């Protein structure tokens, strides 16, 4: 009898595994969840189209499967496929300390350069010394260094090439301002735990707007690992305790957090009545904006790592864009209408990549000797839906995201 049960369970497990694997092939993010190598080769490409050596680029990132992380990984894989690099992602991070371990693992895996999305500034001195000891170049993605002491240590390192970042505080302020423009007075906030540099900056900007426009931050929920269900609960609690609430600010809406907010408001027939502003894009934004479920949203910064990646690739190829560490500033995209969202999906993320093969190649001095750091900064600064539409409006076929 015991053997029969074991045999039955084993069979069921095999069936389950088959179902899981079978469905898993339905959608390919092009990224990985654990440390995994992305072999990037293009059979059709000419040998001269590639860099002289196949450099291995590591990325320490929270995930390559959520909306933001997945889109970034796809773009980096696409760029690596074009210029002939190999990508390694390490998403095995749950704390600032584990990011140090993740960096060590990537160094051990033979990465020539590493891009890091650091939780906080505190881990950077250790990462700097690790990279120096192992002669590995590194950059920061979606981050800038705010601690002056840490900044001095990191920027003194010849292995630190720079960072790409967005004006997080200013975006937080802009979200606050949009609440004011919509006539909101009492706003609840869903954010990350204290210590997350990005969320703290967005929070600070929002608080500044509240102070300036006389709005109240009535309550908050802080959690780094919110699910849709937990977010729905949080919003329901806000609704129950603060009937005067007329706005919800979500500092980071990916990973089903924004979906949870939308669901809770719909369950209580508050869609449109309680205004929602969010940073980070999710899918189906055109539908949500059309339904009035989202009133202000900024995001589209999945291209951020591409610019830090270019700093590393140019350095490794022996054609550095600069002898100093550089900061590349990127703008958020603000979606105002369903049409904006549809254009965004059509030209930037989803159907196409925002930069085609020629544009990617032109960012590398090895292929384009005229490329300069100022030009790269200009490309980043120009990033917007209009910018992408103006470049690819007529010929999006060559940037199709498969």
């Amino acid at each position, binding site marked *: 009898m015991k053997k029969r049960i074991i045999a039955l369970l084993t069979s069921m497990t095999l069936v389950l595994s088959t179902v899981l694997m079978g469905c898993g092939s339905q959608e390919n993010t092009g990224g990985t969840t654990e440390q995994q190598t992305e072999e990037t080769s293009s059979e059709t490409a000419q040998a001269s189209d590639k860099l002289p050596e196949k450099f291995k680029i590591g990325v320490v990132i929270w995930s390559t499967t959520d909306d933001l992380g997945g889109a970034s990984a796809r773009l980096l894989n696409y760029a690596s496929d074009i210029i002939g690099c190999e990508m390694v992602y390490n998403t095995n991070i*749950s704390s600032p300390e584990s990011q140090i371990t993740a960096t060590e693992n990537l160094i051990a895996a033979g990465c020539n350069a590493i891009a890091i999305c650091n939780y906080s500034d505190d881990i950077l001195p250790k990462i700097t010394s690790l990279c120096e000891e192992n002669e590995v170049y590194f950059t920061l993605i979606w981050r800038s260094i705010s601690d002056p002491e840490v900044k001095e240590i990191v920027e003194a390192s010849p292995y630190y090439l720079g960072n790409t970042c967005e004006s997080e505080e200013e975006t937080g302020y802009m979200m606050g301002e949009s609440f004011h423009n919509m006539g909101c007075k009492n706003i609840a906030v869903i954010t990350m735990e204290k210590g997350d540099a990005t969320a703290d900056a967005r929070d600070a900007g929002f608080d500044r707007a509240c102070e300036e426009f006389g709005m109240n931050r009535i309550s908050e929920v*802080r959690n780094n*690992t919110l699910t849709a269900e937990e977010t729905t609960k949080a919003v329901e609690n806000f609704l129950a305790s603060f009937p005067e609430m007329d706005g919800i600010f979500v500092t980071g809406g990916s990973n089903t957090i924004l979906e949870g907010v939308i669901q809770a408001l719909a369950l209580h027939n508050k869609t449109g009545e309680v205004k929602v502003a969010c940073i980070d894009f999710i899918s189906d934004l055109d539908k949500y904006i059309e339904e009035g479920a989202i009133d202000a949203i900024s995001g589209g910064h999945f291209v951020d790592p591409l610019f830090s990646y270019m700093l590393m690739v140019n350095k490794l190829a022996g054609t550095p864009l600069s002898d100093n560490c550089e900061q590349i500033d990127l703008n958020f995209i603000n979606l105002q209408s369903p049409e904006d969202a549809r254009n965004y999906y059509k030209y930037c993320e989803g159907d196409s990549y925002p930069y085609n093969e020629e544009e990617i190649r032109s960012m590398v001095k090895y292929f384009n000797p005229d490329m300069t750091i100022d030009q790269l900064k200009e490309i980043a600064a120009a990033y917007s839906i209009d910018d992408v539409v103006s470049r690819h409006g007529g010929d999006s076929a060559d940037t199709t995201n498969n």
Partner: protein
Amino acid sequence: MKQKIKWKNMIIPIAMPVIVFLVFFICQPERFGTPAGIMIMLQQSVINSIIGFGLSLNLVIDTWDFSAGAQLVLAGLVGAYYSQYYGLAGLIVVTVLVATLLGALTGLVYFVFKIPSIIVTIGMMLVYESLGSLYHGGANVTIDMGISFLGRSPGIFIVGILTYILAYVIYHHTKFGYNVRAVGNGEATAKSIGINSLKIRFLCFVVGGIFVGIASFLQVSYGGAIAPKTGMNTMSMVFPPFMGVFIGQYLERYCDIMLGIFLGVFSMTMINTGLIAMGLPGTLQQVVTGCFMLIFMAISINREQAVLKSRKAAA
């Protein structure tokens, strides 16, 4: 004397939720305890209570299951995906089936390798989390709003009550339930009367999986979407139900353990809601919740020891 015992059995179980309610109601009469607010808190307690019903079977026999959260997420992801093709039936059937299979798999590993449950379930949790992030490319799955009605009143209460009845019957009126309690009361004694304790432990994982499956489709319906979780993040999902079970086990001498679990979870939900109503910063909310858990455990454990000491002294 009989009358006194009955009153005690009624008063003590409801004392904790009543005290918690009064504390917050007195502090924030305008913000806390409105009829709509109470309804929301009851609604929010259903899912964690159902997970607690499943976990309680294991905890009664001193087996820990940290993989329940990962099972819930993986089953929810697969079920939500199939709901796109088979609607509500796909969501319910697939979710419960997958969670039960995962429970069985965890139980099987425990059964075969005979290693401590904490190690087995943490290991399986990591496996299930990874499978969740591989499934469908690790993408989030959103369900159609039209099939999410079980996640709100009255659907969530109907499912909650039916699940409570199921848990009650399994625990009190089945041979399996008797055996679970027998093993919980003393494995050596249970073995001496012919109960195969290892088989019971395996079945606890399987039956627990059914409850996790029910909680999973309710969670997907309630949140409208589900995303994979990695890095042991699903472990935090089982702590509120664990707390409910601890309270339920304490209240078991006064009322049904399953009712005790619900009262425990409901009290914890009130604390969370009350702290938000008081406008406490997010970080402080967690501190207060943690302190409540510690105080409750300290009182309940020390009280038991004090009773034992006084009995020994009396003897």
